[in-house]
């Protein structure tokens, strides 16, 4: 009994002592996360200068970060901030910088090139953004030259838009039970097949809205064993464009982790559709799409908002086909900046290296969200 109390007292004293030590002499990483100092040492080296800048961006210490730049005379502090977080509401507006990576590319006694990859924590997951920074030595310290990309601003104007819009009126509570309600949109799965990946089974396919009204869609798949008992049920979640205008096709991808294809006897697909109020605006053109082979296989291109409405969040979904036209993969990317009218915004979708060789064509669709009214 006595020894137990002694042990508890010792543990309490040790805990208090460790807390005090941690507060008075914090570990560099903890101090950096708290926004106090850099994990790297000040600006004594090019990498340290970039690291310090990264810490300041993470702490949203814009004034401090801006004042440390070598080329700050070329732009204002708000322009620097908007270059990182966007001028208009977008994914980055509601994100924080989770972590960053510093990678030296080239160095001499007076200057260096350093790659800074910022991993923004957004509501749809991590969104990396990479900048190559030129760092110059000024006296005994290194300073970063920020490669400013000035966000274009929209000139005040009126853009006439006369695209179609659909609204829905459902039957009322006073209607006879036999009275008709508005029909749910007719959708059809036009392609579906499973593939086996290292982390489980993936069901890929395409869904068509064959109706004349917009549809809110999702797809659920149930894997059945050879004895027709259910193994697992999963949905497409955000690996699909949920809004389909008439005759529009979306790819979908459904993951079944830790399931082997050899266990699967059949698959039960359930496409779901509902009516939704929608607009045919904005039209987003996808320009200059390029398939890049492995290594670093990817699909790149530019999104061009042809409408008059600012698109705050754009979701790019790429469907990749083999030579025979079968879907071999579906990949996506959220674009972390707003799409301004007539302003190209680049995107890059990564493709698994092992599948890249079998891809011969692709098709891209865009799902958009505008805070002025979702499409």
């Amino acid at each position: 009994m006595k020894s137990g109390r002694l042990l508890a007292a010792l543990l309490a004293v040790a805990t208090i002592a460790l807390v005090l030590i941690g507060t008075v002499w914090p570990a560099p990483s903890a101090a950096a996360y708290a926004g106090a100092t850099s994990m790297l040492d000040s600006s004594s080296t090019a990498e340290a200068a970039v690291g310090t800048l990264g810490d300041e961006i993470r702490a949203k210490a814009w004034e401090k970060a801006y004042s440390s730049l070598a080329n700050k005379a070329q732009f204002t502090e708000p322009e620097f901030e908007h270059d990182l977080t966007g001028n208009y509401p977008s994914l980055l507006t509601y994100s924080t910088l989770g972590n960053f990576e510093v990678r030296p590319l080239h160095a001499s006694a007076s200057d260096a090139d350093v790659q800074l990859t910022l991993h923004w924590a957004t509501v749809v997951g991590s969104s990396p953004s990479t900048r190559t920074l030129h760092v110059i030595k000024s006296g005994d310290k290194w300073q970063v030259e920020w490669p400013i990309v000035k966000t274009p601003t929209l000139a005040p104007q009126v853009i006439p838009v006369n695209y179609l819009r659909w609204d829905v009126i459902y039957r009322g509570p006073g209607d006879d039970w036999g009275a008709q309600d508005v029909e749910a949109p007719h959708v059809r799965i036009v392609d579906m097949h499973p593939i086996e990946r290292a982390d489980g089974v993936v069901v890929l396919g395409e869904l068509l809205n064959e109706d004349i009204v917009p549809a809110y869609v999702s797809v659920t798949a149930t894997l059945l064993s050879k004895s027709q008992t259910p193994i697992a049920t999963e949905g497409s979640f955000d690996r699909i464009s949920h809004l389909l205008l008439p005759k529009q096709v979306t790819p979908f991808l459904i993951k079944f982790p830790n399931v082997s294809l050899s266990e699967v006897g059949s698959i039960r697909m359930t496409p779901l559709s509902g009516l939704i109020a929608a607009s045919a605006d904005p039209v987003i053109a996808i320009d200059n799409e390029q398939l890049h082979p492995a290594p670093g296989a990817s699909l790149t291109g530019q999104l061009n908002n042809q409408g008059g409405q600012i698109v705050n969040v754009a979701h790019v979904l790429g469907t990749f086909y083999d030579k025979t036209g079968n879907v071999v993969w579906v990949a996506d990317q959220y674009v972390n900046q707003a799409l301004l009218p007539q302003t190209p915004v680049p995107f890059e979708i990564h493709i698994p290296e092992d599948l890249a060789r079998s891809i011969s064509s692709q098709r891209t669709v865009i799902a958009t969200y505008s805070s002025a009214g979702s499409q």
Partner: protein
Amino acid sequence: MRLRGLLLTCVAATAMTHPVLSQSTSMSMPTAVEAGKAFSISITGSGKATLYIIGLGQVLKRDVTLGQAAFFPAGSLYNAGHYLAVLAADSSAQSGEFDIIPLNKPAELSFLARPSRLPVGLHNGITGAVYVFDAYQNLITTPTAISFELTGPAGTAQKRAMETQDGSAWTSMDSTGQQGVDRFVARSGEVSSNRVVSQVPGDPCGLKMTARLSGQKLVLATDPVRDCNGNAVSDGTIVTFTESFNGGQSTVDVPLKHGVAEVQMDDHSGATISVASGIVLGNQIHWKD
């Protein structure tokens, strides 16, 4: 059954307070009565008693004088079903059973027409199911003559005549080739019920585009898009233009506006341009400046 047992128990308990029914007391009632019609139950004997009529949705209680008929005016019982009559006096009770049956005259049709919207030219694409009710909302289960009539946008009518089975009848009809609104009518005697069915254009047919240069841009436009029956495809339908050039590609999904889709794309000499809508492919253009 539980409900009936409970009611009989209650009635028996109530009867304990009444005089005993004599051996000569008996009830005589019709085996079936039409809903809402007047009827009577004749009771022999002498003295006073209480008559209970117990059905699924109704319970009646009457103080009766034995030896006289208990008269129930029109509208007393109107829910079709099986009824129990209990005559209670003192510690004894007598019971009998009879049915309330639906009126043989339809007063209301519940008509379910599906779907409310479908493409043109679908065989048996429209179904209609009808349930026949009397004036008291009882399902009329005896065979009743029903006619269905679907009048298309062009005025042509498809007709079916049949009898209900167990209170219902159904049919299926074709959507015609012309888009517009169908009028779908179910009729029984003087009673009818109307529904509308919208016939919408089908998939685009013979999708064709043309290209022309306008400044630095290539203007692509479809001819008016129609389905295989010649109906104009609805505005808002997505048409996809794809321009392939030197390993690159540009794509735009454009909604139809006033029957055509039009877009401006970058001018790439030697590009192959294709057009599609849903799963329907249109023509291809090999563009040269």
